[in-house]
């Protein structure tokens, strides 16, 4: 199958992409990421990537926090191409389950540009049912990362997240410093069972731009340097039935 690899410069960063198989690279979140320079010298930045070929074991890469009973669904690397991890929560109202990195290893700080992307599928138990969240959040992964009864993400945190509440037919994007949140609620429509790529770029100054399927959304958020470091987190919450998130990958790159 013929490929058409090309180099591409944006924001002073050089990358490679495939014009035949992945032309949207030129507009997506990674176009300004100096990944090759970091690969050549780790002192320039950090690369965190989980493609979910391996299991998610508590106290290894991810720490799992679950409230309520054990889910009936199997948290497992699925028999599906590309490495897909299915993460379940129990089905009682407000039961939840999160996976968070062991440490708060990222911080939105001046000069510390950051790129984030995750690809996932949320097939909810019924029309508009269920809650999911993915992002970089201070204190994330604990109980109530998504608050009970559709009250949104943590009330007090530094960072950003993509989330859907039960009853929502869209994916929201929120950025936060302490108790001050900015939320964009309706730019990204959500359809159960559809695979989405969500991304975010923090420019190392004051702007977070968020992406859906490689397209930068109209509303960028302004955010000052945060005081708290952040976990990488994903998880699901029930409003009365078991839910699961099928994670394809999460990647976070930040200048060191």
């Amino acid at each position, binding site marked *: 199958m013929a490929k058409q690899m090309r180099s591409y410069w944006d924001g002073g960063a050089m*990358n490679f992409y495939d014009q035949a*198989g992945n032309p949207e690279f030129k507009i997506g979140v*990674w176009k300004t990421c100096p990944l090759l320079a970091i690969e050549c010298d780790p002192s320039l930045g950090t690369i965190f990537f989980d*493609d979910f070929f391996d299991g998610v074991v508590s106290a290894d890469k991810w720490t799992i926090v679950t409230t309520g009973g054990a889910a009936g669904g199997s948290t497992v690397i699925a028999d599906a191409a590309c*490495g897909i991890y299915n993460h379940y929560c129990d089905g009682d109202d407000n039961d939840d389950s999160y996976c968070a990195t062991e440490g708060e290893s990222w911080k939105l700080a001046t000069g510390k540009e950051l790129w984030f992307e995750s690809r996932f599928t949320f097939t909810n138990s019924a029309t508009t049912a269920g809650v999911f969240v993915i992002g970089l959040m201070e204190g994330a992964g604990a109980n109530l990362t998504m608050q009970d009864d559709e009250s949104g993400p943590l009330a007090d945190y530094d960072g950003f997240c993509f989330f859907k509440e039960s009853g929502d037919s869209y994916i929201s994007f929120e950025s936060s410093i302490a108790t001050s949140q900015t939320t964009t609620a309706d730019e990204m429509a959500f359809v159960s069972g559809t695979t989405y790529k969500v991304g975010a770029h923090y420019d190392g100054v004051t702007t977070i731009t968020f992406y859906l399927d490689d397209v930068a959304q109209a509303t960028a958020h302004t955010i000052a340097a945060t005081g708290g470091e952040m976990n990488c987190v994903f998880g699901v919450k029930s409003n009365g039935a078991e839910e699961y998130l099928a994670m394809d*990958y999460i*990647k976070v790159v930040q200048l060191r």
Partner: protein
Amino acid sequence: MLKQTRSFWEDGALNFYDEVLNHAFKVGVWSKCPYWAIKCDPSFGTIFFDDFFDGVTSGDKWTVVEDADKTGTDVVADTVCGVYHHYCDGDDNDESYCATQGESWLMATGKPLWFETKLTFTNSGTTAGVFCVGIASGGGGANTMQDTEAGPFANYDGFYFYKQSGETYISFESSLAGAQVTNAAFQAFTSGDTYRLGVYYDGVTTITPYVNGVAGTAHTMATNTSEGNAFFGVKSNGTAEEYLAIDYIKIVQLR
């Protein structure tokens, strides 16, 4: 030591290689792999790589399925490059396999795949022992190599490299359900020699095996219907315990 890093284009893919240290790159399995485009954007493809610096712990990256009572120690050996020794017990038809937790690869139209492993099988006696490595639906389960030299699974999607006891060669087999194509004398085998075994599936209908960076006779294979695990393992023919020394396994596929 002088190096000569150069860029190389093949089939539209750009790569870098070292002309002094690794000039065989240009004819090997990786020459057409758009690795750097995947590194720059993970949505384009997947990269699975184990260089075996870490141990193989059942329930993490690899799941171990085996018959009991082996005395050999599965361990990352005290040798350069990260080499993992994986043993089976020594009773006739006792076996031990490592398989990825999920069946995470599917040879499907538009999804080219590149596979390579480097391994050494030092058998317990002349032509003794069985080893296998590959990607197959159900790969790494019991009887991935059937008892009494009956070959790989009778029904699977994917491919194997393998050697059975009594054989002095490595075979390559591709399979779609119950239909197998086998190159039985793909590569002469010498106990204790290190081999690089590779596969390129073109995302259409051709799967090409490689040994030590050189392409062998290609097979025609239609789109698979079942995903496959990556796996490797050993089986005894009753002579003694056997072990496989695995240096690395790498698999790249478009997403």
